[in-house]
């Protein structure tokens, strides 16, 4: 019913507007087409001219409104470089933007039709074309140069001392795996995955897996000032590790391991002070549509001091000790004796 009423209302309003429009057409004929057209032309020219200051004012208002929630505070060195480059690009494009938009609306006003004047026949000029081909080309070359320097910077090989952490996406949360005391992530195989006791499909025949820690709440704990390298994977569809505060992003693709690395420079606690937001938290946003829960696929990065990190690590149990069928408290979690008890053989033959 309400749908019907709304539609009728809209149609009615349209008919009224249309009739007004028709009436004005008749008026045009009555009052002399040329004259009315010239008047209308003048009015439109002024409206168009007004659009420019109106637009500038709107942009100003927007900037005022958003100025403290644009780029979030960058929490790593490459992030700061990012911000510089962003400002440079904004300046270059901003100049072009205001200049061309101004000319557009100004010309509209200045060169509105007039019976006193006729258009200037000006069909081409190679000189002008040359000018506005080379200037943009040079500007682009500069932007590319800055861009590629930063690009190679952020995509360079991670330093050897970087902590390696694995982050794996699944519908709809992040699983984070730490290498444990041996500093080595063990092998895993998607065929060994079991949601009950082996969410990442760790291969229990690999002794490196024994001490690996998995946080299933999507918390990525990293140490301030220490480079961290993420090994990114996915269990099912494509996800994306989006780290707005670190100006980084990398897809999580099933069957492929991707990586990114950065050196966090501000702890979560300091960030709470900087942003004056006691609830501040670095968030990991899934940036690749991955299904109905995409919008809720949230992880967090906890940037800690080394001491805090040690403390957190000490509180963690290895995934093996929590889940392996063979794990009994007190037995050292070694790969060899775990082997026969897993159903890895079955899993492999499943194919």
């Amino acid at each position, binding site marked *: 019913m309400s*749908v019907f009423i709304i539609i009728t209302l*809209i149609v009615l309003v*349209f008919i009224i507007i*249309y009739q007004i429009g028709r009436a004005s*057409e008749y008026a045009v004929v009555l009052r002399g087409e040329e004259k009315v057209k010239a008047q*209308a*032309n003048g009015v439109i*020219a002024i*409206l168009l001219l007004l659009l420019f200051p109106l*637009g500038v004012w709107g942009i100003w208002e*927007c900037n005022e409104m*958003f100025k403290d*929630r*644009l*780029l*979030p505070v960058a929490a790593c060195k490459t992030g700061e470089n*990012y911000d510089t*480059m962003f400002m440079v*690009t904004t300046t*270059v494009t901003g100049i072009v933007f205001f200049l*061309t*938009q101004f000319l*557009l*609306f100004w*010309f509209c006003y200045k*060169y*509105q*039709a007039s019976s006193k004047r006729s258009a200037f026949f*000006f*069909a*081409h000029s190679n000189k*002008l*074309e040359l000018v506005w*081909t080379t200037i*943009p080309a040079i500007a682009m070359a500069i932007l590319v140069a800055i*861009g590629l320097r930063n*690009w*190679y910077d952020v995509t360079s090989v991670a330093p050897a001392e970087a902590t390696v952490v694995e982050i794996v996406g699944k*519908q709809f949360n992040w699983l984070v795996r730490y290498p444990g005391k041996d500093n080595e992530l063990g092998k895993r195989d998607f065929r060994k*995955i079991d949601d009950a006791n082996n969410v990442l*499909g760790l291969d229990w025949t690999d002794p490196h897996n024994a001490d690996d820690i998995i946080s299933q709440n999507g918390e990525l704990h990293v140490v301030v000032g220490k480079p961290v390298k993420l090994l*990114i994977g996915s*269990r*099912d*569809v494509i996800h*994306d590790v989006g780290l*707005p505060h670190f100006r*980084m*992003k*990398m897809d999580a693709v099933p*069957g*492929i391991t991707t990586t990114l690395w950065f050196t966090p420079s501000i702890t979560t606690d300091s960030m709470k002070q900087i942003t004056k937001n006691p609830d501040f*938290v670095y*968030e990991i*946003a899934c940036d*690749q*549509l991955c299904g*109905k829960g995409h*919008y809720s696929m949230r992880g967090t990065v906890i940037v800690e001091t080394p001491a805090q990190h040690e403390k957190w690590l000490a509180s963690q149990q290895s995934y093996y000790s929590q889940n392996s069928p063979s794990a009994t408290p007190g037995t050292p979690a070694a790969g060899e004796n775990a082997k026969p008890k897993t159903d890895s053989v079955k899993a492999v033959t499943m*194919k």
Partner: protein
Amino acid sequence: MNNHEIITEGAAIAHGHEGAAEHHAHEHHEQHFIWKYIFSQDHKMISKQFLVTGIIWAIIGALMSVFFRLQLGFPDSTFPIMEKVLGEWAKGGKLSPEFYYALVTMHGTILVFFVLTAGLSGTFANLLIPLQVGARDMASPFMNMLSYWFFFLASILMFVSLFVETGPASGGWTTYPPLSALKEASLGAGVGMDLWLLSMATFVVSSLLGGLNYISTVLNMRTKGMTMTRMPLTIWALFFTAVLGVLSFPVLFSGFVLLIFDRNFGTSFYLSEIFIGGKALPHIGGSAILYQHLFWFLGHPEVYIIMLPGMGMASEVLSTHSRKPIFGYFAMIISLIGITVLAFVVWAHHMFVTGMSPFLGSIFVLLTLLIAVPSAVKVFNWLTTIWRGNIRFTTPMLYALGFVSLFISGGLTGIFLGNSALDIHLHDTYFVVAHFHIVMGVSAFFGMFAGIYHWFPKMFGRYMNNTLGYIHFFITFIGAYLIFWPMHYEGIAGMPRRYYDYSAWESFKHFQGVNGFISIVATIVFVAQLLFVFNFFMSMYRGRKVTTKNPWGSTTLEWTTPIEPGHGNWEGDIPEVYRWPYDYKDDGNGGDFIPQTVPLRPGEEAH
């Protein structure tokens, strides 16, 4: 009725001396309704069919965006009206996440392919190519008809997919596998996705049939004197649009075929090492990224397929209504060539963060920013075209001017995105949404509106109402900026696109107010579009009649045909062309333009 007789009369004359329409010769000159309006082979009728189908799709697609914008802007409210329209999917007046994504996907697919590709190229390539190059019809009117009917079939398939129980496809208009390949991954990956693929495959067929026809017509059917360099820029633009489509749609098609195989026949082109729905799948060795390469190899040219017709029409309209030649005709053609060639080698800028080699990425950065150069050239040429003109602010002119403004705004943000070092933060955020809606969505729509308002008199022998046109323009232009400008800020803050709800996110929830604002404006702008639709259909029957052949005082050939041209376009011989299409200058008799059909005066230099 009287009118009809005259038209068919004209057609009969036309058949007399044109081979292209020979198979009509046996027909009586009173054409049956079905052949005249439905299975018509007349390019003008086919163009109207594309246009009307496009308009219907545009309304559906835009209405979808109103629905999901309401959810996005007001996540805490309920809208009983949505339940009325969408039923199950909006229980209690609130969209379910599944259906939210289905709507977003359908909105994108419909607007990109059905409206701005078929609706735009289909309409204007069909209408303008024969009329502006001086041909009786397309090279193959029959293939042309098939092109429409394949599009119609694609439309039916897509429409049906809206009603299947598991809902339409919901993996985004890009439908990346594995999400789109595995039924376990989402409801929309079920039958809805099968229908989507079938529909799109059919769509590709339609596009190829149309494109080949446009190309051969432009190359072979030009009238005497119409050399390539005397063609209006609309034709150049539509020609390159067709070239882009013909060369890239097959690649998309192959991508779809592999996806169909993966979905139904157990192959592993795109699938590898997947655990979903509680079990590990047998697929190994495929690459999900391969699909993205195949998709974007069309996907990027596709954005120019959408853009070029608008560029061509804006050029034509700007020149005509400022009574001045287009500035830099050759530079415009060369930049079109530049854009067309480069459009094929920049696709991976959509994939900077898929883990591809940084070196490869840097090549694509270079090529992508290179494409900004011909784009800039076009903008400066348009500006110089109106400089010192004598501008008449007709509705088409306003849209052409709006087109330039939007193209500048959206093109400049491309410079951010094309630089991988900046894209790494902006990718898949609202910045991208803002970029492509402004540069492609709205700006192409503006090109299309300019075209519709400008050639409506040619299509229907009547004018659209001017006052309504002005209202429509100002609401749409201001509204478009109000909707999409704020999205840049959200994107710069890192706010991801394709989220159903942001309230759980510490970093993004403070944009709630802005989202609400955007949704309100979007709804208003939607209603203003209905005003256009209303104007369109009312004017078709009730609009002021066109009384002169050449109402805009334009130089090109379409305005030498009768007011309502019949099948065959010209009564008598096709006119011969003697000069370039932009001779807006003193004709020596107080007029300010010289049509292409007027021979050079003694001593006059050709352009």
